[in-house]
């Protein structure tokens, strides 16, 4: 049971990451009219969709973490979760930035929420990585898998 706690925490954080830009601290819901007369969603809409994917990935990683053998898959999964958390943090800052307006909901709410949840995920993933890999013998866990 003890080894399942980080896995469950990953699932909760992943679902939070996925739900936050849509329901908890939603991004802007206005759309912009294009020259052709159509409606185009704001930039933060795509940030939210990217975060949905990353959040579900983190939750799926957490599920695998719960069922993974202790010294086999888990350190690798934890490293993958750390990578996904980094991506989730950088998504609204760098890859698909949220809107620039300082009073827009995505700028003053969603972005901060995503920062906090992705940082918590990153810290948890790093903690799991270092607790799963014996630090005195960094490669011992891989060696043990050899026949």
């Amino acid at each position, binding site marked *: 049971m003890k080894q399942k706690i980080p896995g469950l925490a990953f699932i909760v954080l992943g679902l939070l990451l996925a739900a936050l830009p849509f329901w908890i*601290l939603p991004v802007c819901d*206005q759309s*912009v009219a294009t020259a052709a007369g159509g409606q185009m969603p*704001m930039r933060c809409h795509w940030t939210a969709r990217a975060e949905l994917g990353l959040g579900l990935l983190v939750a799926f990683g957490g599920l695998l973490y719960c069922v993974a053998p202790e010294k086999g898959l888990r350190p690798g999964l934890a490293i993958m979760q750390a990578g996904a958390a980094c991506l989730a943090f950088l998504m609204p800052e760098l890859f698909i930035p949220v*809107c620039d*307006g*300082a009073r827009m909901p995505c700028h003053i709410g969603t972005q*901060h929420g995503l920062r906090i949840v992705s940082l918590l995920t990153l810290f948890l993933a790093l903690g799991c990585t270092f607790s799963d890999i014996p630090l005195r013998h960094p490669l011992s866990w891989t060696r043990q898998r050899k026949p």
Partner: protein
Amino acid sequence: MDQAKETVKARALTPLALAWATLRRRPARSGSLCLLVALFAFALCAAALVNAWLKSGLSGLSGRMGADILIVPYGYEKKLEGALLRGEPSQFYTKVELVDKIRGHAFVAAASPQLFLTSLSAGCCSVKVQLVGFDPATDFSVGPWLRSRLDKPLGQLGTDEIVVGALITAKPGESIRFFGKPFTVAARMDRSGMGFDSSVFMTLEAARLLTKEALFAELAAEGLMPLGGADDADAAISSVLIKVKDGSSVKEAANELMRLYAIPYNLDMLVAADMLSAISSSIKNLSLLLFGLACGLWGIALLALFVVFSAGQAERRREMAILRLLGATRKRLALITLTEALLISLAGAAGGLGAAGLLLLPFAPLLFQTLGLPYLPLSCGQALAVGITVALLALLTGPLAASWSALSLTRLDTYQSLREGE
């Protein structure tokens, strides 16, 4: 030799080591006490920060208001309040001839018109902003504030130049388009804590040119044309700001102006002092509620720590008696209890302040935007002072609650305590 030293060090019965060992032995008890102190620290920090933010926002608002009375078309006083406090874009129009008529009264020291326009959200990821046209020759409200950042006299601000609030993402020298017309940013203001932060300022002439010349078909299509149409743009203003002469009553002046002009011009008014006092009263109520909550949590934390330490002391009389036999002085026994309480407070204070920093600092703009109250961020020094005060109060909680238990340990009868329960 080194190993022997390490062993001796590890077994040293210092008050800190003993207190730490006790806390680790009962993680659930220690954790719940830490949580109580953390809740108190969080609530107190929230109350202190919200109070300081709102007070600085209110002082910024009262400092920049300038006018005693604001005259607006009937039914638009809430819209003006929204524009002033929260920068909510709105536009409404009345006739310019009103300004000269108001200036003619003996109790009026100064009167200046303003013209409000709402930009179109044309580009991606932009929202409508409030455009404020002011008269540089007569303005006494925003003028002094704008002068603090402009590197030229206010009167020399061109019709293609604008001054932007702190929340508008444009740097001086950059160009922004409104209704298709490019404007150069002459200056960007510091945070004021009010709606001016998300407003754009231009001369009255520029605002009129914008309403008349720039894409007026688009304006008319959206129903944004002042009064009857483009021909009336020269005759349109949105509000008149009035400064009453010293010695004259603002209330009487407002009543007189309403009596004369309310019906012919379909006007309403906003008395600045009334608006500020209403905001001040909301701030007072909110602060009272938050500080009340923090005090209640402090009382609960103190009581819980007192009960836990008192009950724990009764359980640990034999342990303390053995420590006395091992050579610990009575003062040292008290010190162990106080250290234990201090460690709980330290962890609680760190947790509470950390949570406050993580949740309150980033989400403060969202909170105050939702509440619709003026807000001005604190400087690093002010925030640090709040943090230190809260940390000191939270740190005091544990030792204060455990002081009675610690004091009673100094009166411990070693022999009786050791024989108890035999």
